[in-house]
């Protein structure tokens, strides 16, 4: 008997399912409303805590120095006096990924560098974000046809914000950072019901 040809509509349930009180209650749809209410109530309880944590996280993002190529120079230019990133609380460029929570992938991710970028990402403690900067990191950029370049860093790690440009201007960097801050602001419980101010 070929399993594909069985006509599933004809199969009847042989064992009679016992009808419990819960099933009856469920038919009236009461349980789903109670669950939804409790979830929303939980939201109100937790969403304020989430908002505080979101605000703390977005206002003190400590990037890890992982500059690979030309965009690394623009990363330094963004962190320097003229376009000061320290205004957003990102002044301490932690050298070790253990204390960082934001990773700028700035530059071309070559095949040889890919496992190390992935290891760097995995070493970072949990609430972490990745900003892929420059067309090389986004999709391989001008080196798309090259044999030794990975076509975009999102092939190996999840990316939150993409900044186009080759290299993107420091203003574009700061715009990308602001986009990430917006994204962090809308995380957590309160996001679904628009409770996050």
């Amino acid at each position, binding site marked *: 008997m070929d399993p594909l040809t069985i006509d599933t509509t004809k199969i009847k349930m042989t064992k009679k399912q016992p009808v419990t009180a819960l099933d009856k209650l469920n038919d009236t749809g009461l349980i789903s409303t109670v669950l939804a209410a409790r979830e929303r109530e939980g939201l109100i309880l937790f969403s304020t805590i989430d908002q505080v944590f979101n605000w703390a996280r977005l206002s003190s993002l400590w990037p890890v120095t992982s500059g690979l190529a030309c965009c690394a120079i623009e990363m330094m230019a963004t962190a320097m006096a003229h376009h000061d990133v320290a205004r957003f609380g990102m002044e301490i460029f932690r050298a070790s990924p253990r204390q960082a929570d934001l990773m700028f992938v700035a530059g071309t991710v070559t*095949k040889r560098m*890919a496992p190390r970028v992935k*290891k760097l990402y995995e070493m970072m403690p949990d609430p972490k974000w990745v900003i892929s900067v420059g067309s090389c990191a986004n999709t391989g950029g001008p080196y798309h046809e090259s044999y*030794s370049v990975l076509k975009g860093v999102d092939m190996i790690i999840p990316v939150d914000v993409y900044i186009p440009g080759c290299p993107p201007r420091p203003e574009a960097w700061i715009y990308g950072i602001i986009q990430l801050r917006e994204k962090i602001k809308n995380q957590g419980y309160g996001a679904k019901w628009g409770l996050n101010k």
Partner: protein
Amino acid sequence: MNPAEEIKQLFPDSVVSVGHQTNKPLAIIKKEGLLKIAEKVKEMGFDNLSVITGIDYGDRFEVVYNFLSYTKKQNLVLKVVLGHENPEVDSLASVWKVADWLERETYDLVGIKFRGHPNLKRILLPDGWIGHPLRKDYDMSVDQFVTVGEDGEDIVSTDGSNLLRR
């Protein structure tokens, strides 16, 4: 007197022909005489070996050495023509120390072996890389991925399953 003719007089048998490379004196020499000529060139004051280029012409390989004499402000180009099967030529690392890495890079990208080189290994690509990219018959379709072994060395494999994110 341009240095290419000078070398022709000194080593008449191993210099195939003398000419010009756009504006620099050029001497095409045989593979065997390379090391002797190189030592002579160093004495003539060409202390800067600028670049070593390996070119794959489909039926033959060519290795081109460009020299500059800082003192005499002169240029010289030496060219060696090699067969296509396994191109092999003497290494100049003993004469110019910069040749060590230039030859390793030529071996890495074009696949020309250099006899007598201290440690002829790949310099830019990971060791297990298949093929030499700058050869005309290098197929670009094969995608090779690199993963890190326990002691930090690179392992090249064509399937990137543990690396890529599906």
